């Protein structure tokens, strides 16, 4: 019954947007599969597994998702050499798509069939946010480390100005002004990218 996996396998082979993923500085030659997997795992494994665990709510399922994500990265290695968006953004996006696809596959499995109509697939179409995740990650890569750090503290970790000040070892006033300039810098980077695209 778990057929949907194998039938959708062909989709795994769909070409990556050429140039969607920028090369990591020390990315090994694509033919060295083992080194590539080891490098990706060492750099991004924790991030990927934590994300997949939150999405699936299940550590074992999350590990499967991470494994498939890394295998896909390897399959696309030849194409993943230049372009926009960070490797991290690409990996997280692929992981999310795998989770979505699996949720869909589960929806046609008999055991849960009576509930199919009540449980539409978890998400409808990610293609918009597929682009945005990578664009925003890329933009965050381009702002200064201080700016990125303060956004991570205040937005992603939900810290208050006082907590972030303590964490970063700077006065609260600096956290405030830095977060303002960080958002301005992010806007400038994103605006620059738009200008590039529309040219």
């Amino acid at each position, binding site marked *: *019954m778990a057929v949907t996996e194998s*039938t959708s396998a062909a*989709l*795994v*082979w*769909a070409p990556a*947007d050429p140039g969607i993923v920028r090369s990591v500085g020390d990315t090994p030659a694509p*033919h060295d599969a083992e080194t590539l*997997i*080891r490098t990706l*795992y*060492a*750099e991004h*494994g*924790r*991030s*990927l*597994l*934590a*994300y997949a665990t*939150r999405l699936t709510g299940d550590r074992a399922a999350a*590990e499967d998702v991470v*494994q498939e994500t*890394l*295998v*896909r990265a390897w399959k696309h290695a*030849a194409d993943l050499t230049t372009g926009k968006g960070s490797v991290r*953004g690409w990996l997280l996006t*692929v992981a999310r798509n*795998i989770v979505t696809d699996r949720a*869909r596959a589960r929806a*046609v499995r*008999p*055991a849960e*069939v*009576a*509930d199919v*109509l009540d449980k539409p697939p978890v998400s409808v*179409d990610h*293609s918009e946010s*597929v*682009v945005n*995740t990578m664009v*925003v990650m890329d*933009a965050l890569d381009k702002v200064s480390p201080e700016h990125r750090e303060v*956004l*991570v503290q205040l*937005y992603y970790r939900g810290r*208050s*100005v006082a907590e*972030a000040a303590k964490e970063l070892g700077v006065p609260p006033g600096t*956290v*405030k002004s*830095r*977060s*303002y*300039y960080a*958002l301005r810098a*992010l806007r400038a980077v*994103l605006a620059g990218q738009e200008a590039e695209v529309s040219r």
Partner: protein
Amino acid sequence: MSEHDRTQLGAYALGALEPGEAEAVDEHLATCEECRAELAELNEMKDFLGEVPPEAFLEGPPEGGDLLLQRTLREVRELEAEPPVPVAAKRRSRSRWLLVAAALVVVAGALGGGIAIGRSTAPEASNAPTAGSKQVTTTDTASGATMATTVEPRTGWSWVQVHVSGLKAGDQCVLLVTDKTGKSWTAGSWVVSEKAAKNGSTFAGGVLIPLDQVGTVEIRTVQGQQVVKTAI
């Protein structure tokens, strides 16, 4: 905050100010259009940040050993051993991708829909049935059940999906597929829930019968009573 202090607005937009500070900003915003415009721009950036999950900022390998790494390496080694090896020769792997891309375009064309190849790195699976599928809808006058059947071709076997309404809650059902020689295969069994009885439900399973050999699809109760049956 009676005068412009834009540097407060970043932390305000991110919800990181103390309640008292935020109130002061609120008061100023009520009277200052310029700052409201500025805040709108900052809020837009905040929405963009929402596109990236918080886990994106964790570094390093997962905690708790490298069993997962070993499993992944094993899978890659096994895949590498199988011809054609996708990364052994760039040219070859590319041409394979192009073939699959071409196949996807053909399928998309056949369905009359559009699949935006290349927009997303992992394209969405289509909900539309595969090209070459057979579809039949039947209502059984005795049981009152209506079954919309789709049989999709697979290599050497078939994927049978039925959307059924008019089943009784609590009925234990079997989906039977019979080939043209009269041999029957069970594509699965289930019990009808209250919701499924009320709203209808979808059920699917695979059977080892090539599409052109599928004779009939039927739903029976476990007790052997025929509920609805259709010829394909």
